[in-house]
């Protein structure tokens, strides 16, 4: 996999190394460790603020759209499931991975667009970054999640382009997929803590 230089003399009894986890996936997982702790920090800060408040939710603030977001969450989870399916297919038959892959990408984009639509409505109803602690934490946490979702989608889109041109390696697909699984996996926690 990696060039080990020219004229390398290897002893017979020392087998060449094959990494358990590919470079790309390992690097991505390390990056996601930091991001996991980032979410842990924000979510626990929010939980503390919520627990310490005398009145919660803050008066005069709109209700968060719990039901609509629940439906949207299902879209995101479906996107994650489709990507798992696509990754499995890719290792067997590359052609058949395309459909579930691009379906996952489309559903993921739909999730982000719907979230954006929700934000516009909430701002119209008076929930802003400055209006209350709920507003501040809502836009902070959901916004950081959205930023991750957009970055992961962009990476998936680039992966998709490679897939169409036939240059895609399984480890490259896995690297992008791990990022998207993180976005999907962290969302139920965000939804549970922020919306409820």
């Amino acid at each position, binding site marked *: 996999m990696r060039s080990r230089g020219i004229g390398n003399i290897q002893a017979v009894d020392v087998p060449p190394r094959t990494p358990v986890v590919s470079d790309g996936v390992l690097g*991505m997982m390390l990056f996601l460790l*930091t991001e996991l702790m980032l979410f842990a920090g924000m979510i626990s*800060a929010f939980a503390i603020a919520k627990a310490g408040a005398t009145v919660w939710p803050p008066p005069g603030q709109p209700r968060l759209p719990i039901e609509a977001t629940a439906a949207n969450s299902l879209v995101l989870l479906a996107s994650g499931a489709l990507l798992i399916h696509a990754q499995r297919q890719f290792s067997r038959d590359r052609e058949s991975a395309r459909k579930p892959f691009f379906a996952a990408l489309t559903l993921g984009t739909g999730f982000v667009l719907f979230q954006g639509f929700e934000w516009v409505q909430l701002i119209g109803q008076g929930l802003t970054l400055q209006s209350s602690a709920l507003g501040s934490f809502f836009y902070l946490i959901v916004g950081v999640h959205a930023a991750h979702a957009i970055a992961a989608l962009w990476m998936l889109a680039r992966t998709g382009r490679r897939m169409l041109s036939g240059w895609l390696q399984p480890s490259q697909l896995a*690297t992008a997929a791990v990022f998207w699984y993180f976005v999907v996996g962290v969302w139920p926690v965000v939804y549970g803590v922020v919306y409820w």
Partner: protein
Amino acid sequence: MATAPATHEEHDLGHHEQSFWEKYVFSTDHKVIAMQYMFTGMAMALIGGFFAYAFRMQLAYPGMEVPGWGLVTPNDYNQLVTNHGAIMIFWVAMPVLIAAMGNYLIPLMLGCDDMVFPKLNRLSYQIFLLSAVVLLSSFFVSGGGFGGAWTMYPPLSTKAEYSLTQLGSTIFVVAVALEFVAFLLGGINFITTAMNSRAPGMKLYDVPMVVWMIVVASILFMASVGPLIAGAIMMLFDQNLGTAFFDPDRAGDPILWQHLFWFFGHPEVYVVLLPAMGIVAEIITTFSRKKLFAYRTILYTVFGTGVLSFTVWAHHQFVAGIDPRMAHVFTVTTLLISVPIAEMLFVYIATLYGGSIEYSTPMLWALAFLVEFLIGGVTGIYLGASGGDIYMHDTYFVLAHFHYTFFPIAIIGTYAGVTYWFPKMFGRHMNEFWGKVHFWGTIIPFNGIFIPLFFLGAGGQHRRIADFTVYPELAQMQPWREFATVALLIMLAFQVIFLWNFFYSMFRGRKAEKNPWKANTLEWVAPSPPPHGNFPDGLPTVYRAPYEFSHPDHDEDYWPQNEPPAEQKA
């Protein structure tokens, strides 16, 4: 990151002539990036040292026109101490100990040609350089640099009426955030390279200790920095977007910042300590010609310390307001964490015991590290216990304790590493005589600076005050302050000897061979200095552990990791 893995094709270019820009500025070679980090760190150390000079002069001789700075106003004083701290930790200790040493040593010691993600590595340095420029630019905006201490506690950092520099405080937070991004990219590289790119035959227990320490430090950094990034985003929002995360007037919580900051801040101590401990381990084995005592025990201890370091942070809030029951818990964990560190010091001493010790310059630095860091560790016990801390909190005792940990780490550890690997880095030797003069000229004044500060702190001298002579009960201790400042001036003067020795030896020093110290690890297999691609005779294969000195089955007193066993040679 998507594109990063497929970048090794550029490593077969050994035969193509590189332009100056390709070779030294936009290089993806780990050794060049290491040097970029090292020289940037050294330049920042000069700035951080100059700041220390300016505010120490003000403390010893209040109201004087400090040569090179002028009158140090209280506002200047705050900016100087704040940026001295931030620079020395984020722009000196981290780039030199982790980024420069990690970049230089990891591929060489693992026997590979470069990092796994070379382009990410280059990006890491570029972002780091940008962060340094951003930080320094804060001094030139209206209101000047940030002066609310490197810990950035709100409301000092969030409200312009207290910080007196709206833009300066924002720039400060942005600079620190950029620096984190740089180290995140570096850490990803270090860990992935150590896991996936070791020489054939090198098992995890054959990895040199300094590489392990840098890897564990990177894991600690990545696992602890997330909450601080969250805090930094919240702080930027508070400063500029009108949120009230940390504003008690509007239902925010200023203590929340302290938790987010110190959840990172305490593991950060180990992030910089571990690489220094690793450097010392390499040096003491080589210069006592003994196997590193209890390699696996050290390794497990390091992991244990890493886990424990996430459970001690609230010892910084004993006075800020914390439930006394929680204070008990954090007292216990804090005192507990001194156990593994003490154990490591004992293990190092066991390595030295019975060895044939050679007092070379790097060895002197390594031994000094053990002695001085011990003082730092022991004085920490008074502060880790909540009862003692309530008296000592925010006094010069804390400051002196802190410098007895960080000076050994950031300065002594760096000098140990630089003098030890200098022959490899530049293919020449530094002058031993001037190296020793510089050593004593640094160590003696260092103690001269900080021992008086313990007494001042125990005598009740509070931190962050520009002029103590206005307090009658503190004014009488002025001779101690002058003593510390004079010691600092002497120490700074001796650094000129180092700089001269460093740059002179780089071009005119005695030529160094491949393995001048007769050490075992793989970096000594490469030529001095190693060319692009590191190992022109083919990448090495590993047959044994890294510290086989004075082995009974071997004629010579060292046994390089890559040397095939006797039966294979025949």
